[in-house]
C-alpha cells in the first residue's frame, strides 16, 4: 500500500476526569474499508469527531493526502473531503429530503438542479429517494439514505459511518453494503464503526481496535474470528449466555385484537395485534424502528389504555388499567429510552428505584417513603447487576448508558415480575453488559416468568427468544419458533411479507 489517505499520529483528547483518546495512531488507505472497533466508552466517537471537526484534539496531528488536516468546524472537514453519517441521525423531521441535503452542503445548487442530482446519485447507488418527501415520514432505512446521499453529493474522499446498520433490516443492510463496496471500488475510503462483528468480517479490509482510548490492536477482520475480535475489544474471554432446558407452561398473558391510533403525528397505529405468552417463555419481537415498538410497549405497560378485553393477564382484563395497577398484578416493563422514560435523569438511583418499585417492594407505607428499604433495594440492584457507580445517591444522568441500562433492567427483574416487557434492552450497551442483561432475562424466564423482548438486534432475539414475531407498520406477525427460522425468512417477516409466506407454506 502506498501512502495512506488519512494518517493519524499521537492523537490525544482528554475530558475532565477521563482520557477519551490516548496517543491514537493509525492510517487509512485509499478505497479501504477500515473498521473501528471498541466497547462503549472506548473513544471511537471522540476519535471520529476529531476527524470531522466537531472536537479538537489536545495533542497529535492528522494528515489527509499528506497535508495537515486540522478542521475547526465540520464545514472545513467537508471541504477537505471528509463526510460523516451519524449514529443518531442528524436530520430535521419537519423539513423535506432536498432541504435536509442542502443544509449539509457548503455551496448548494438551486433546488431544481439539486433534486435532479439527488435522484441521479440515489439511483446510481441503489438508494432510491424522493427529494420532496418530508423526512419525518420516512423509515429508518430511508432516513439513513438521506444522510448517505448527502455525503455522496460532495464526492468525499473519506466517508465515516457510525453504527450504520443498527436500525436496518437484513435486506437493507445488504443494499448498504453493496453501496459501500461500490464506493470503495471507486477509491473512497470508509471508516466504519460497528458493534456487529460479523458485519465487519464480511465488509472491512482492515480493523483498528480501541480499548479505554488506546489502540490495542490491528488486524485483518477477514482472517480473524468474531470471537477473537470480541476478546480483543473486551480484553478478556467472553461467556455466551447459558440457558437450561425449557418447558412451555400455561399461557399467562394474552393479547387479542389490540388496535390503537397513533399517539402523535409521527407515530404508528397498532393494528389488530394478537399473541399469547406462556410462563417461562421469551417472546422476541423484531422489527425496524418506528413500526410500532414504542406504541406496543406503551399498550402493554399501561401507559396507554386499550379497548376492553384486548390485554389479559391470567384471565384478568388489565386493558383499562394504568401502569401501577398492572405492576401490582405482576406485569412490569422497561422502555427503550433510558433517560427520561425508564429513568428520571436528574433523580438519584435510589429515587428511581422507588419510582418503579414502591408497590411491589413495599417501599412506601401509609403515604410515607421508607428510605432505608429504598436504599437497600437500590443497593441490591447495583450489587446484583454489577452497576458501576459510586453509590445509590448518584443521579441517573451521571451513569454511562450501559450501566444505567443494567440498573433499569435489574430494578424490574428484582421485583419478581410474572410478565416483563422490555424494549431494546441492550441498545448502545457494550458486549459484556449486554451479555449480563441477556443472562438476567434468561434466568428470569427459567424462574417461570413470561418475557417479551422487543429489539432491533436480530442476533440478540435469535440468541435468547423461544419464539419470534415481527412488527411491521403496527401489525404483528404470528409468532414462529426461533429454532425454525433463517435469515431470509426473518427478513421477509420484518418486511411485512409473513402472510405471503404463510400461504406458500
Amino acid at each position, binding site marked *: 500500500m502506498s501512502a495512506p489517505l488519512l494518517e493519524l499520529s499521537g492523537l490525544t483528547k482528554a475530558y475532565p476526569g477521563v482520557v477519551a483518546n490516548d496517543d491514537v495512531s493509525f492510517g487509512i488507505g485509499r478505497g479501504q474499508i477500515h473498521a473501528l472497533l471498541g466497547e462503549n466508552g472506548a473513544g471511537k466517537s471522540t476519535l471520529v469527531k476529531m476527524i470531522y471537526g466537531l472536537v479538537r484534539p489536545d495533542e497529535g496531528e492528522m494528515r489527509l493526502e499528506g497535508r495537515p488536516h486540522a478542521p475547526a468546524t465540520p464545514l472545513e472537514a467537508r471541504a477537505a473531503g471528509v463526510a460523516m453519517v451519524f449514529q443518531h441521525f442528524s436530520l430535521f423531521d419537519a*423539513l423535506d429530503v432536498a*432541504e435536509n441535503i442542502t*443544509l449539509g452542503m457548503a455551496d448548494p445548487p438551486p433546488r431544481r438542479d439539486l433534486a435532479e442530482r439527488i435522484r441521479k446519485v440515489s439511483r446510481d447507488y441503489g438508494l432510491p429517494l424522493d427529494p420532496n418527501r418530508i423526512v419525518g415520514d420516512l423509515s429508518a432505512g430511508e432516513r439513513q439514505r438521506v444522510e448517505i446521499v448527502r455525503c455522496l453529493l460532495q464526492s468525499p474522499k473519506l466517508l465515516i459511518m457510525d453504527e450504520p446498520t443498527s436500525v436496518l433490516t437484513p435486506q437493507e443492510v445488504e443494499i448498504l453494503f453493496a453501496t459501500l463496496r461500490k464506493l470503495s471500488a471507486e477509491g473512497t475510503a470508509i471508516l466504519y464503526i460497528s458493534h456487529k462483528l460479523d458485519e465487519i468480517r464480511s465488509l472491512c479490509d482492515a480493523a483498528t481496535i480501541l480499548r479505554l482510548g488506546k489502540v490495542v490492536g490491528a488486524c485483518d477482520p477477514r482472517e480473524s474470528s468474531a470471537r477473537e475480535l470480541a476478546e480483543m475489544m473486551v480484553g478478556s474471554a467472553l461467556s455466551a449466555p447459558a440457558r437450561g432446558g425449557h418447558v412451555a407452561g400455561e399461557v399467562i398473558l394474552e393479547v387479542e385484537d389490540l388496535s390503537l391510533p397513533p399517539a402523535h403525528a409521527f407515530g404508528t397505529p397498532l393494528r389488530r395485534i394478537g399473541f399469547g405468552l406462556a410462563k417461562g417463555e421469551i417472546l422476541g419481537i423484531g422489527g425496524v424502528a418506528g413500526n410500532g415498538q414504542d406504541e406496543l410497549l406503551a399498550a402493554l405497560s399501561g401507559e396507554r389504555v386499550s379497548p376492553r378485553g384486548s390485554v389479559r393477564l391470567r384471565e384478568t382484563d388489565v386493558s383499562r388499567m394504568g401502569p401501577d395497577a398492572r405492576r401490582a398484578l405482576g406485569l412490569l416493563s422497561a422502555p427503550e429510552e433510558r433517560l427520561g422514560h425508564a429513568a428520571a435523569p436528574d433523580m438519584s438511583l435510589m429515587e428511581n428505584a422507588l419510582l418503579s418499585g414502591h408497590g411491589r417492594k413495599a417501599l412506601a407505607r401509609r403515604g410515607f417513603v421508607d428510605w432505608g428499604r429504598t436504599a437497600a433495594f437500590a443497593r441490591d440492584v447495583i450489587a446484583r447487576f454489577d452497576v458501576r457507580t459510586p453509590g445509590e445517591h448518584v443521579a441517573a444522568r451521571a451513569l454511562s448508558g450501559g450501566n444505567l441500562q443494567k440498573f433499569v433492567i435489574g430494578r424490574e427483574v428484582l421485583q419478581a415480575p410474572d410478565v416483563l416487557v422490555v424494549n431494546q434492552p441492550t441498545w448502545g450497551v457494550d458486549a459484556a453488559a449486554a451479555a449480563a442483561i441477556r443472562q438476567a432475562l434468561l434466568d428470569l424466564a427459567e424462574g417461570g416468568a413470561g418475557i417479551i423482548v422487543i429489539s432491533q438486534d436480530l442476533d440478540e432475539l435469535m440468541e435468547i427468544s423461544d419464539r419470534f414475531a415481527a412488527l411491521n407498520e403496527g401489525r404483528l406477525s404470528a409468532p414462529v419458533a426461533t429454532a425454525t427460522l433463517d435469515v431470509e425468512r426473518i427478513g421477509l417477516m420484518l418486511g411485512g411479507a409473513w402472510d405471503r409466506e404463510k400461504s406458500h407454506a
Partner: protein
Amino acid sequence: MFGTISPTLLVAALMVAATPILLAALGELVVEKAGVLNLGVEGMMIIGAICGFAVAVETGSPVAGFAGGALGGAALSLVFGVLTQFLLSNQVATGLALTLFGLGLSSLLGQGYVGIKPPATGRLDFGPLSDLPFAGRVVFGHDWVVYLSLALTVGIWWFLRRSRAGLTLRAVGESHDAAHALGLRVRATRLAAIAFGGACAGLGGAYLSLVRVPQWTEGMTSGVGWIALAIVVFASWRPGGVLLGAYLFGGVTVLQLNLQAAGVAIPVEYLSMSPYLITIAVLVVISARGTRRSLGAPADLGKQFHATR
C-alpha cells in the same frame, strides 16, 4: 344601527390598528422559528414605544423615531439573548422578566414625555390614485409603516420558504443538535433572530405611540404584545396566518369601538372582549383544519442549547 359606520374608514382604521400587532407578531414568528420562545414581546414593544416617541420628539423626525424604536426593542431583546443563549437561563422566566423590566424602564424613561404631541407621520402621496373611491383611502391612503409591515409579511414568507438563510434558521429551530453536528452556527443564528424580533416589536411599539394613539402614556401597550404572541401560535407559525390574525384582531377592535360609539345595546364588557375571543376562535378553526406539519411548531422551541465540545 350600522348606518353611522363608514366601511371605508373602518377598513382604513383597521389597518392602522392591526399594524403594531402585525409587526410584533412577525418578529416573534422569526424568533420562534429559530427555536427561541421570547415572552418579552410586551416589554420590547413598550420600550420601542417610548424610545421611538422620545427620538421623534427630540429630533422632530418620525422616521428617526421609528429607527429609535426598533433599536430600543433590539437592544432590550439582546439582554434576553445574552441571558438565554450564553448564560443558559430559562427562556420562559427570562421572557416574563423582560416584560416586567420593559414596563418599568419605559415609565422611567417616559416621565418627561407625558402630554406631548409627537411630530405627525404623514400619509404617502400616491397622486391621483389616492382620490379613487374606497381603494384610494384603503389601499393608497396610509403612512409608510403600514406598507412596510405588509412588505415584511411577504419578505419573511419568502425568507423562510425560499432562502438558504431561512432554511438554516428553520433547521436551527427544528433540531439544534443536528444543526450543530452539520456545522451550522446555532447561537449566532438565534441571536440574530432574537435581535430581529426585538426590532420588529420595537417598531410596532413606536407605531403605537407615534401614529395609532399618538402620544405617550404609561403602560400604553396594554396587552398588545401578548395577543401578538398568541397570534403566532394560533397562526401555526405562518406569516400569512399572522397577517390574517392581526387584521382580524384589528378589525374587530375597531368595529367594537364603533359599535360602542353608536350606542349598541350590548354591554361594553362583551364588546371589549370580543376581539380576543373572535381572533383566537377563528385562528383555532383554521389551524385545526390544515394539518401541514412542515409548517407547524418548531420541534426545539424553547429548548436550551448547550454545545459539548
